[in-house]
């Protein structure tokens, strides 16, 4: 008789949204690995049809409460692309600043509240706080500095109201930004400390040959502008997304799964950005990485937490640079007149590249909308990782194995609410 082992998690914890995991092992051979998404669909691409192009940043923000800025940025860039408008100068800088805020807030949330408890063996950050109060407090305060930036530039931390097609409704005062500088100086030190602390965790010995994909800009660590690039030969403008990638609908998921047409699974997120853009990090971020022995390319998915911490250092540096150079004046936005056209936007959400495509009509109404969220793009690579981690850990008892597999999913900071258009964990050892 064959020996069948199943591990199932019906409702994944410490991720955003509703997902599951199911694996089955028969006679020591992995037969099935499934990262499921049962988050109910909300049909954004359908109900946006007929709405005004100017509404896209406010509507698509509601796809995700964790990374609304990413949705706002991809949508405004796509609409401006359609209408032939470029937003430059200090408006562009303020967009980078608010994105810095979202990275600090989202990375702080993920490192300290969602992921670190796995490495230290706690059910949650609240449990962890009983033994590591100062560490959790540091994480919460880092997250808060990120939220303070988003609130100052965007009006509030969740679903900000100040971002519009063409720029902003109102520019912040120099004095308001200057007030952030002190907090950011603290945050940079705390981020540097975070790199050291998380680099001290125990890591499983695993490396995977990924196709990394991220936005790449010639001069800057990427937020919102540049080509879509991979380490295996992709180098295309955002408008080429559908030529190179395809989205497929499979039964176990309410999220569409993306793949590189010619090759299959690919990896978006901090490890991809870091590998493809290392040389554009600030000196202090590079030094922080080097100090803990992190190479210019990281292939161990569990070490994504260290890369996130390095990116927090970068985001603090970049935010301080922008605040220091900010000179208010000039209009808060540039005029954008609609015309019948197609526009594309690819920007770097904290958890990876987010692609938007819109077709709009002469009167500014949306004709078609397409949104490819990072977690939908990462679904296949998450399953590939699960298979590798499972095969490496078959000697673990079920409870420990399940936790290790859950941790492996959390390496990607999956945002399931985003992906659905997205996740359920069952482990079936068959």
């Amino acid at each position, binding site marked *: 008789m064959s020996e069948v082992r199943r591990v199932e998690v019906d*409702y*994944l*914890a*410490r*991720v*955003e*949204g*509703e997902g599951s995991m199911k694996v089955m092992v028969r006679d020591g051979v992995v037969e099935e690995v499934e990262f499921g998404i049962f*988050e*109910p*669909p*909300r*049909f954004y*691409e*359908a*109900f946006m049809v007929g*709405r*005004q192009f100017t*509404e896209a940043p*406010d*509507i698509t923000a*509601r796809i*995700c*409460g*964790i990374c*609304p800025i990413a949705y706002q940025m991809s949508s405004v860039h796509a609409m401006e692309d359609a209408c032939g408008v470029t937003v430059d100068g200090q408006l562009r800088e303020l967009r980078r600043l608010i994105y810095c805020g979202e990275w600090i807030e989202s990375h702080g*949330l993920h490192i300290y*509240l969602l992921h670190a*408890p796995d490495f230290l063996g706690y*059910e*949650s*950050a*609240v*449990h962890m*706080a009983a033994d590591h*109060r100062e560490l959790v*407090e540091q994480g*919460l*305060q880092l*997250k*808060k500095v990120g*939220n303070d930036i988003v609130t100052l530039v965007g*009006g*509030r931390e*969740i*679903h900000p*109201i*100040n971002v519009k097609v063409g720029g902003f*409704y*109102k520019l912040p005062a120099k004095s308001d930004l200057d007030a952030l500088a002190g907090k950011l100086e603290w945050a940079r030190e705390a981020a540097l400390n975070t790199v050291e602390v998380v680099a001290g965790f125990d890591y499983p010995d695993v490396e995977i040959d990924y196709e990394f994909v991220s936005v790449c800009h010639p001069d800057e660590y990427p937020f919102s502008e540049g080509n879509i690039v991979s380490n295996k030969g992709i180098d295309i403008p955002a408008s080429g997304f559908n030529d190179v990638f395809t989205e*497929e*609908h*499979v*039964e176990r998921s*309410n999220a*569409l799964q993306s793949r590189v047409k010619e090759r299959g699974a690919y990896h978006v997120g901090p490890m991809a950005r870091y590998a493809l853009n290392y040389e554009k990090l600030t000196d202090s971020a590079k030094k922080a990485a080097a100090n803990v022995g992190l190479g210019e390319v990281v292939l161990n998915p569990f070490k994504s937490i260290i890369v996130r911490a390095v990116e927090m250092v970068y985001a603090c540096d970049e935010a301080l640079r922008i605040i220091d150079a900010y000179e208010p004046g000039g209009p808060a936005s540039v005029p954008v007149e609609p015309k019948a056209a197609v526009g594309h936007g690819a920007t770097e959400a904290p958890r990876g590249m987010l692609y938007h495509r819109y077709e709009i009509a002469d009167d500014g109404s949306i004709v078609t909308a397409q949104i490819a969220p990072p977690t939908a793009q990462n679904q296949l690579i998450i399953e590939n990782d699960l298979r590798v981690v499972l095969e490496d850990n078959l000697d673990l008892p079920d409870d420990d194995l399940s936790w290790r597999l*859950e941790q492996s999913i959390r390496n990607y900071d999956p*945002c399931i*609410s985003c992906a659905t*258009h997205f996740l359920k964990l069952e482990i079936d050892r068959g």
Partner: protein
Amino acid sequence: MRPLEERQPTLAVYKFASCDGCQLSLLDCEDELLAVAGAIQIANFPEASREVLPGPYDVVLVEGSITTPHDEERIHDIRRAAGVLITIGACATAGGIQALRNWKDVDDFVNIVYANPQYIETLETSTPISDHVDVDLELRGCPIDKGQLVEVIAAYLQGRKPTIPTYSVCVECKRRGTPCVMVKGTPCLGPVTQAGCNGLCPAYDRGCFGCFGPMESPNTAALADQWHALGIPANRISEAFRSFNAWSGAFREESDRWEERSPV
């Protein structure tokens, strides 16, 4: 369960169709989170913890709207195991922006988004939690205000009624000293929208777009006429009422009234 005097009260958080933003508001209480966790036991909150303690729970927060046959059943189980059930955010209190399907054929929506519609199980409508079970308190907003969330939890722990305003955004603008944007010709939903955001959008030189839903006894008809006088076409007036609180009574009715008119 032992009486409350002898133990810590327990908190559970559940998610239905939503963006996660309202439950994130709890984790966004960076200065209060550990104090809250000291006063009330977080017993079932998957976004924050792997640990799930068995119910029933004294306080249950529900985010999201009902959009699937499975969720339609699940909310009844949650209600049965809840002491006080509080819905948080526009999805849970009004159906959310996904309630725009309520005016369309949902099969068309499935076909637009998904290649294999047979895999998708969804209801024709997106509806608020209160359409399905008794709700003890609703916290409005897209997203909710975290100050209101802390107030509600504190009020429960202190055994008093929470202080949540039901007047309009206009009161907040006056209190904040923000000049009226309608006077400058910017269409604004503030006069009919419940307070809670501290008059945010007008303070940023834009009109309110209704995150907190209709105030108590709103005069939506008078406001819509005023928008029309500002030159806003009928179809755009209808759409303005159809956003995150589209399916809530007064906004729904006003949107229907303007949809029936010619587009200008």
